[in-house]
């Protein structure tokens, strides 16, 4: 493995994050975060967990496309998507270990049950789905190690595995929204709605293809491969449809929730709402509805970045900005919280590059492996 400038930066970020994590464990959450009794959840829950899980939605959606809907032409995009999802969930768990007051008890929900708790359900789904992802990804490792038997076993159970993964993902993607159903008097009316679980799920569906496209384009550039242009364009064509449904749901929630006046209140919250909706939903939906945009690499790159930005903004709005007013304090993360988050993201990218360089992830790598075998 060569140490490129890119990797050096990643390693530096990881090192910084690890150092701050050391401080966090030695001196407690109060010493490194801006969290308080008024604001118990911050950047790590908002970004690392909520955004992290949403952006990992490419895994279950692509698996469903290939194995449930039998759209085999998308197969080349599947393995990279599973890899990202798997790494994504590992990062979410890492972030949780940093965020939890008693991380060594993270396994407690396994034996200490509270079926009335949304958090309990999320914990189980994340646990099970990470296992499913590990199994879905395992063929890449088995192929590389030329282990035929386990590979065949996994192949035999792939369909039920994928179906289980889709169910688990549907549950916890939506339940992350349901976490906030219990705070009607704390979350700003612009975001509080009984539809929160559905909105979280649909936006995860929308960001899933966007992430797959983005990832394919970026890795194509990084590894000088030919991007799967036509396939990506086809994938992109579903985004405006899902975003359209999402927009309708958002407007419906706004109309029925009686929060329409808040949209024009000119407050920070209303600005953020506009930003999230216009920049992250309306604009990319409009752009991706144009065939020429879907045919150009730049068009795809920009518009799927906007979809991702939209989901990032939405989750941060729900978890942070939307909580400001009722909390009576405007939490913003400390530099150390940001450093840990950056370190975790850097670790994810680093692990991705390591995996891609050593395992058969892209179709041509798998082909090469098969040819070597012959």
């Amino acid at each position, binding site marked *: 493995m060569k140490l490129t400038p890119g990797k050096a930066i990643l390693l530096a970020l990881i090192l910084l994050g690890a150092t701050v994590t050391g401080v966090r*464990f*030695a*001196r*407690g*959450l*109060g*010493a490194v975060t801006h*969290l*308080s*009794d*008024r604001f*118990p*959840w911050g950047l790590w829950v908002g970004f690392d967990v909520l955004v992290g899980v949403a952006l990992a939605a490419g895994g279950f959606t692509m698996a*469903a496309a290939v*194995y*449930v*809907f*039998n759209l*085999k032409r998308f197969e080349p995009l599947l393995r990279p998507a599973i890899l990202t999802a798997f790494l994504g969930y590992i990062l979410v768990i890492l972030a949780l270990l940093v*965020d*939890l*007051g*008693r*991380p060594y*008890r*993270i396994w*407690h*929900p396994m034996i*200490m*049950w*509270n*079926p*009335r*708790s*949304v*958090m*309990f*359900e*999320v*914990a189980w789904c994340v646990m099970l789905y990470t296992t499913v992802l590990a199994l879905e990804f395992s063929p890449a490792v088995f192929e590389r190690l030329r282990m035929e038997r386990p590979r065949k076993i996994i192949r035999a159970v792939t*369909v039920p595995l994928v*179906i289980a993964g*889709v*169910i688990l993902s*549907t*549950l916890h993607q*939506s*339940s992350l929204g*349901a*976490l906030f*159903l*219990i*705070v*009607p*008097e*704390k979350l700003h009316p612009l975001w509080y709605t*009984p539809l929160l*679980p559905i909105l979280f799920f649909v936006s995860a569906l929308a960001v899933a293809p966007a992430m797959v496209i983005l990832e394919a384009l970026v890795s194509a550039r990084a590894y000088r491969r030919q991007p799967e242009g036509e396939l990506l364009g086809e994938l992109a064509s579903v985004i405006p449809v899902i975003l359209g449904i999402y927009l309708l749901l958002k407007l419906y929630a706004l109309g029925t929730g009686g929060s329409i006046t808040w949209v024009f209140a000119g407050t920070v919250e209303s600005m953020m709402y506009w930003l999230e909706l216009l920049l992250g939903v309306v604009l990319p939906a409009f752009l991706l509805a144009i065939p020429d945009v879907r045919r150009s690499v730049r068009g795809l790159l920009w518009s799927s970045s906007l979809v991702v930005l939209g989901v990032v903004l939405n989750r941060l709005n729900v978890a942070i900005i939307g909580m400001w007013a009722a909390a009576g304090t405007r939490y913003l993360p400390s530099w150390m919280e940001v450093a840990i988050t950056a370190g975790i993201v850097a670790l994810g990218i680093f692990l991705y590059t390591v995996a891609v360089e050593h395992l058969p992830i892209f179709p041509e790598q798998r082909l090469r492996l098969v040819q070597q075998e012959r």
Partner: protein
Amino acid sequence: MDQRRHRTGGSVHAITRREFVRKGLGGLILLTAGGVLSSRAVAKAPLVREKAILIDTARCIGCKSCVAACKEAHGLPPEETGDLSPTTLTNVFFRPIAEPKPHLVLGEGRLQERSYKYQCMHCLDPACASACPVAALRKTPQGPVIYDASRCIGCRYCMMACPFRVPRFEWAKALPSITKCDFCAGRLAAGKKPACVEACPAEALKFGDREELLREARERIKGDPARYFNYIYGEHEVGGTSMLYLADVPFQELGFPNLPKEPLPALTWKSLSKIPGLVVLLGAFLSFVQWLSQRRVEVERIEVAVERRKAA
């Protein structure tokens, strides 16, 4: 009702068979429905009288004897911390009031402000307990909402969920816990009153059965309607709480949150209760789609083969 009569045997014949079946069945259906709809019906054992504290802020003189007694009973340092904190499970807060009004006990000596004691409300259907993934927080039938630190993973979802913003977190500790008033559960079990109630020199705190305290609160309002604000805070807030408040000014002036009558856990339960059905439906749907698409692929393959043979 019916069952009890059956067991004692005294008036079994007082109800006809048909009536029994009707009542029994109806009761059963109601019970199951109730049990399914609100898990509270299951959680609440009717045999134990629920305890409560009536906090009459009109009588509160702001001496903070309760705060000191609470700290002593829990082995906490006596220093003040301003707000509730890991070392201050209850505190007394002072609020200016809109119009000057002589105090019930201090008279003209306190015209401009009122004081009130604040702590965990011990909700009847606590949001914190429903939120906790590991059931570290639990409502006991006697009234207290208690916390088991050995289960807690420190996710702080209870703090998010609590509509009264009560739970505190030990931010400064490497191995933190949640802290809040425990309604002196240990003292109650030993047959004693809560420490704060025992310490109050102004009789602003009264411990007893919730039903009886509600009756007493109503009587106090009726006995001095010119003084009391006609409302018992905690009777219905988020489904009712074990801490009941009286005041001689509107509760808004004291800064008490204006909350809905429905218990908050019902909001998440609406979503959670759909999960079993969703799993079954989704499982069936996905399996069906998979079967259908697989068939389509196979049919296509056969068609192609047939075409080829024809051409050849």
